[in-house]
C-alpha cells in the first residue's frame, strides 16, 4: 500500500517579471516501510516538492495524497506527516527536549497526557533521556537533530519527510541518525529522504528518485539502478607483474592485461583466467560496481543538456545498457 502518492506536481515561481519552473510533473510514490532517496543538485526542486507534499507550498497543478488524504484540503492528512526541514531549527531553543516534545505533540493533535507519555518513550529511545531537562540551545548539533526527528515522530505519523537529516553532523551522530532512519522505516513508516551525502542515500534507501531542473530523471529501486549502471567487468589484481607468456595467453582470451591488473569483460572467463594464473599470488578479485555518486553525476550532467532535461525517459534509456 502506498502511503504517499504525488501526481504530476507542478510549481512555477514568478518574480519581477521572470518565471522559474521549479517543479515539472513530478510523480512519486512511497510504500509503507520504504525509504525513497530523493536526490538532486541544489535548486533542482527537492525542497519545493517536499514542501508541496507537506502542504506548506501550494502546487500550481497536480495532486498529493497521503494515505488517500490531500494535505492541502484535509487537515487530517497533516496528522500523518512528520517533517524535519533543512536549514531550520525545527525546535524551540529556549525549551528543553521534554517541553518541545510535549508542546509539538499537542500541536499535532495529541492530548497532553499522551504527548507526555510519547515524549518519555522517544527520549529514552533516542538516547536523550539524560538531557530531558537541558535547554535545547545547550545540546550538540547531533542531539538537536535527533530531537528534531523525535519531534517529527511524536504523533506517530505514517510518512516522515527528512530534508538533509545528516547535514553538518559528525561521524558518530551521522551513524546514530542512520540507525534511527532504518529503525523508523522498519516500523512500517514511509520515509522521503533528501541528502547530498550519496553514500548515506545508497545505504539507507530502497528506491532512488533523481530530480534535475524540476524534472525527475530517474526513479528505480536502488539495487536495480546500481546493477544497471555497473559494468559486468571483473578486475584481478596481482602481487607481481605478469610474465609475457601468460600475458599473451590472457590477451588471446579477450582480457585486457596490464602488468599487475587484468580486466575481464566476459564473466564466464573468470575461472579459466584464475586457473591460468595458478600459482601466482592474487591480491584481489572484484566486480566493478557503480556507486550512487557515479550514477548521480552521470545523470545530472546528462540531464543538464537541454534536449534531455525535458525527457526523463530519454536520459534513462541513454544511460542503461
Amino acid at each position: 500500500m502506498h502511503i504517499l502518492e504525488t501526481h504530476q506536481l507542478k510549481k512555477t515561481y514568478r518574480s519581477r517579471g521572470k518565471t522559474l519552473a521549479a517543479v515539472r510533473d513530478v510523480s512519486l510514490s512511497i510504500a509503507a516501510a520504504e525509504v525513497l532517496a530523493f536526490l538532486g543538485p541544489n535548486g533542482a526542486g527537492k525542497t519545493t516538492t517536499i514542501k508541496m507534499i507537506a502542504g506548506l507550498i501550494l502546487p500550481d497543478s497536480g495532486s498529493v495524497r497521503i494515505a488517500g488524504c490531500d494535505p492541502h484540503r484535509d487537515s487530517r492528512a497533516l496528522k500523518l506527516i512528520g517533517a524535519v526541514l533543512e536549514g531550520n531549527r525545527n525546535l524551540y531553543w529556549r525549551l528543553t527536549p521534554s517541553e518541545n516534545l510535549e508542546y509539538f505533540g499537542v500541536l499535532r493533535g495529541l492530548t497532553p497526557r499522551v504527548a507526555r507519555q510519547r515524549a518519555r518513550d522517544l527520549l529514552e529511545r533516542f538516547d536523550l533521556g539524560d538531557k530531558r531537562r537541558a535547554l535545547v540551545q545547550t545540546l550538540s548539533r547531533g542531539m538537536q537533530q535527533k530531537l528534531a526527528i523525535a519531534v517529527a515522530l511524536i504523533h506517530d505519523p505514517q510518512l516522515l519527510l527528512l530534508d538533509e537529516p545528516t547535514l553538518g553532523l559528525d561521524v558518530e551522530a551521522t551513524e546514530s541518525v542512520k540507525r534511527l532512519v532504518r529503525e523508523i522505516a522498519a516500523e512500517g513508516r514511509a520515509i522521503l529522504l533528501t541528502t547530498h551525502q550519496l553514500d548515506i542515500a545508497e545505504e539507507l534507501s530502497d528506491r532512488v528518485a533523481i530530480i534535475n531542473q524540476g524534472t525527475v530523471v530517474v526513479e528505480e529501486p536502488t539495487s536495480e539502478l546500481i546493477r544497471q549502471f555497473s559494468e559486468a567487468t571483473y578486475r584481478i589484481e596481482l602481487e607481481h607483474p605478469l610474465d609475457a607468456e601468460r600475458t599473451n595467453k590472457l590477451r588471446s582470451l579477450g582480457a585486457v592485461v596490464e602488468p599487475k591488473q587484468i580486466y575481464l569483460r566476459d564473466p564466464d572467463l573468470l575461472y579459466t583466467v584464475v586457473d591460468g594464473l595458478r600459482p601466482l599470488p592474487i591480491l584481489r578479485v572484484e566486480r566493478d560496481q557503480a556507486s550512487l555518486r557515479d550514477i548521480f553525476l552521470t545523470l545530472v550532467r546528462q540531464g543538464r543538456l537541454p534536449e534531455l532535461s525535458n525527457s526523463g525517459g530519454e536520459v534513462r534509456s541513454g544511460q542503461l545498457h
Partner: protein
Amino acid sequence: MLFLFWAEFKRSWIQLLRYSSEVIGGIIGTTIIFYGLFLSARYIAGPGFQFGDRLDAIIVGYVLWALMLFILGDIAGGLQQEARTGTLEQLFLSPYSAPQVFLMRAFASLTLNLAINLSILLLIMVLTGSRLAFPITLIPPLLAVLMGAYGISFAMGSLALILKQVQQLLSVFQFGLLFLFTAPVETWTGGMRIIGWLLPMAPGAGLLRDVMARGMDLNAQALALALLNGALYLVVGLALFRWSEQETKRQGKLSGY
C-alpha cells in the same frame, strides 16, 4: 482547542519565567519612558499646575498602548521571529489551522500581558501619584480594546507573513498606535466623532478613560459601538491572516526570510 490553549499557556509562562530579566527590563523601560514624559510635562506646566483627571486619562491611554505593543510583539513579532529561527513551518504542519494556533497563542499569553501591564500601571501610579479607579465596568471596554488589538496584530502579522521584513514598518506603526490610544476621541463632536468610532480600539480606549480616570458610568450605546468596533477589526484581521497564509503558501515563501 483547550489542549492547544493549555500547551501555549505553558510554553509562554515557561519562557517568561526562564527569561524573566527580559520581561522585567520591558516593565522598567516602559515605566521610565512614561515617567520621563511626566516629568517633562510637569516642568513645562510649572510647579503649581494640577493635572487632575487628565493625567489619569493619559496614563490609561499609555498603558493600553503598552499592552497593544506586547500583543503586537506576540503575534506579528513572533511570526517574524519564528520565520527567522525556523519553527514557523512546524506550526503550519499542525492539523489546527494557522489562525487557530496563533489565536490560541495570543489568548494564552494574554494573562501574561495583562500581568505585565498591570505591573507597569501600578508603578506609574506610584511614581505619578495618580488615583485610577478599577471598577468591574472596565471589563467590557477592555474586551473591546483587546479584540481590536488582536485584529490589528493579525493584520500586521499578515504583512509579516507576506513581506517578512516589517520591523521598520512596525516601529513607525507604534507611533500611530500611540495616537489612537491617547487621542480623546470620546470628547470629539460632529463629523470627527464618527471618525473616532471608526478608528481601531479608540472607542474602547475612550470608555476606559471614562470609567477609570473620570469615574463615569458606562454608556450602553458607546459600549455597543466599542464592542462592534473591536469585533469588526478582529474579524478583518483574522480574514487577512487567513488570506496571507494562502498567498504565502502559493508564493512558496512561508519560511523565506
